[in-house]
């Protein structure tokens, strides 16, 4: 058989964005040795060598849905913003109203180009009265750094790139809280009452840890921002505490199928410089009540009326529609009306799911469409996102 390049995995599909990093030496997570010892298969992700899977991406996916999985996300980019006008700066630079979030609150936001396209999607945490942490995609580290640096001019605020001094470990799954509570050396007062999209200060062996109830899996879970020197010890302690709960290390392949089931967009697939927020179903992220922010005029005007809209697609059978496959109105049509941006056989649901951009006339849920799967047309129908929603307790 002809093996697809490992570039066929979730992770590398973003490889198209990483042209500037292809000549650079690969970067390694502070947890790299741990992953090697665990037998991980690696892939290049935005210039980083990151685990795709440890043994089975399906088993890792199911572990997160039913128990708990442990992810290394240390490749992600982090920026600290501090100063009297930190909030005002973020209100100007980003699409959301970040000045309105409380201490300890997190908010999903967008960094827009003046023309309205998306430079990156990110999560912003308020870590102090005048302190914020901005977490961006690894593949967009440079454009985010450039845009924030440019936009901070004139504000009494300081931007600091802390990507190299921040490791990120995600503990995701329905029993993730029990695992953290049992983790030796870990202390986070208020963990039991921590709400979704909130963060608190905790400690591990006396060292500072930012503990956030956030994630990219559609499950309950936590993200731990720690100093790289602490990463191996935190990973080992959480893994040990989770042993009784069925914890497994989980790679980027399972992270991609988990976020896809949860209907969460991935930059480079559902989001791009050519995508307006409203097209991606993120029309509520830009805070139009704000007087001004970069991209406001373009967002207000909106994309063309016939600009493609993001939809979910489902099908019977087991053949997945994958990124870049063209979509047609029916089996005999020759002009595509859309394109798949992400797709897989859903491990949880057992049938194919995909996210796709289609012409608005075909975006109504329940519309029957035809996807060209490597030369074979298969029936899919549009649906609302997400495909999977966890049961809240």
């Amino acid at each position, binding site marked *: *058989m*002809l093996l697809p390049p490992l570039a066929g995995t979730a992770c590398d599909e973003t490889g198209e964005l990483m042209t500037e990093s292809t000549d650079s030496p690969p970067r390694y997570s502070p947890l790299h040795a741990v992953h090697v010892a665990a037998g991980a*298969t690696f892939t290049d992700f935005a210039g980083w060598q990151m685990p795709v899977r440890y043994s*089975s*991406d399906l088993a890792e*996916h199911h572990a997160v849905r039913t128990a708990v999985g442990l992810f290394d996300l240390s490749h992600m980019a982090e920026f600290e913003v501090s100063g009297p006008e930190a909030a005002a700066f973020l209100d100007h630079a980003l699409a959301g109203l970040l000045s309105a979030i409380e201490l300890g609150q997190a908010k999903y936001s967008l960094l827009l180009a003046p023309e309205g396209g998306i430079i990156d999607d990110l999560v912003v945490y308020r870590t102090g009265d005048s302190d914020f942490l901005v977490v961006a995609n690894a593949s967009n580290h440079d454009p985010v750094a450039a845009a924030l640096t440019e936009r901070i001019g004139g504000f009494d605020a300081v931007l600091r790139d802390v990507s190299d001094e921040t490791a990120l470990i995600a503990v995701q799954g329905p029993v993730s809280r029990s695992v953290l509570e049992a983790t030796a050396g870990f202390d986070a007062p208020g963990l039991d009452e921590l709400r979704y999209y909130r963060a608190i200060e905790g400690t591990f062996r006396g060292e500072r840890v930012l503990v956030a109830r956030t994630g990219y899996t559609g499950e309950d879970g936590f993200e731990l921002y720690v100093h790289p020197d602490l990463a191996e010890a935190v990973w080992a302690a959480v893994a040990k505490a989770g042993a009784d709960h069925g914890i497994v290390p989980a790679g980027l*392949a399972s992270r991609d199928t988990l976020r896809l089931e949860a209907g969460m967009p991935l930059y480079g697939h559902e989001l791009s410089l050519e995508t307006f927020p409203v097209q991606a179903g993120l029309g509520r992220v830009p805070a139009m009540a704000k007087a001004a922010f970069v991209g406001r005029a373009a967002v207000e005007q909106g994309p063309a009326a016939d600009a493609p809209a993001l939809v979910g697609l489902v099908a019977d059978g087991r053949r*997945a529609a994958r990124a870049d496959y063209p979509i047609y109105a029916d089996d005999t049509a020759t002009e595509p009306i859309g394109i798949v941006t992400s797709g897989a*056989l859903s491990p949880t649901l057992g049938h194919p799911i995909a996210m796709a951009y289609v012409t608005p006339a075909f975006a109504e849920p329940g519309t029957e469409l035809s996807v060209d799967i*490597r030369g074979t047309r298969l029936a899919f129908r549009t649906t609302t996102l997400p495909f999977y929603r966890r049961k809240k307790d």
Partner: protein
Amino acid sequence: MTDQSELRYTSEHEWVLVEGTVATIGITAYAAAQLGDIVYLDLPAAGTQIAGGSVVGEIESTKSVGELFAPVDGTVVEKNAAVEDAPELVNSDPLGAGWLLKVEFTELPELLSLAEYNALIGE
């Protein structure tokens, strides 16, 4: 489990077991591991004429699609229905229960030994 040294290999990561004029074909453990969890197989039906070197099937994992190349010219005499129902067999037992096709071949091309194949994949 089949003895690996009795098999012949292709540079496309297939193994071939020759018994008389019938070749049993599967993919190597290395290929299965590289693909990840296999979730779907598209294999040619019995009676299909296949030409060596051409694409005759597809092997899909959660994250990628691999193409199955015919290692020999011939006629498919049986496809493994069990792996179509349970694709995970290809991961769990690639050289045994995870076999893919039996082909009545006309001529056997030059194939790799285990040592040659291992050298190819760097083991």
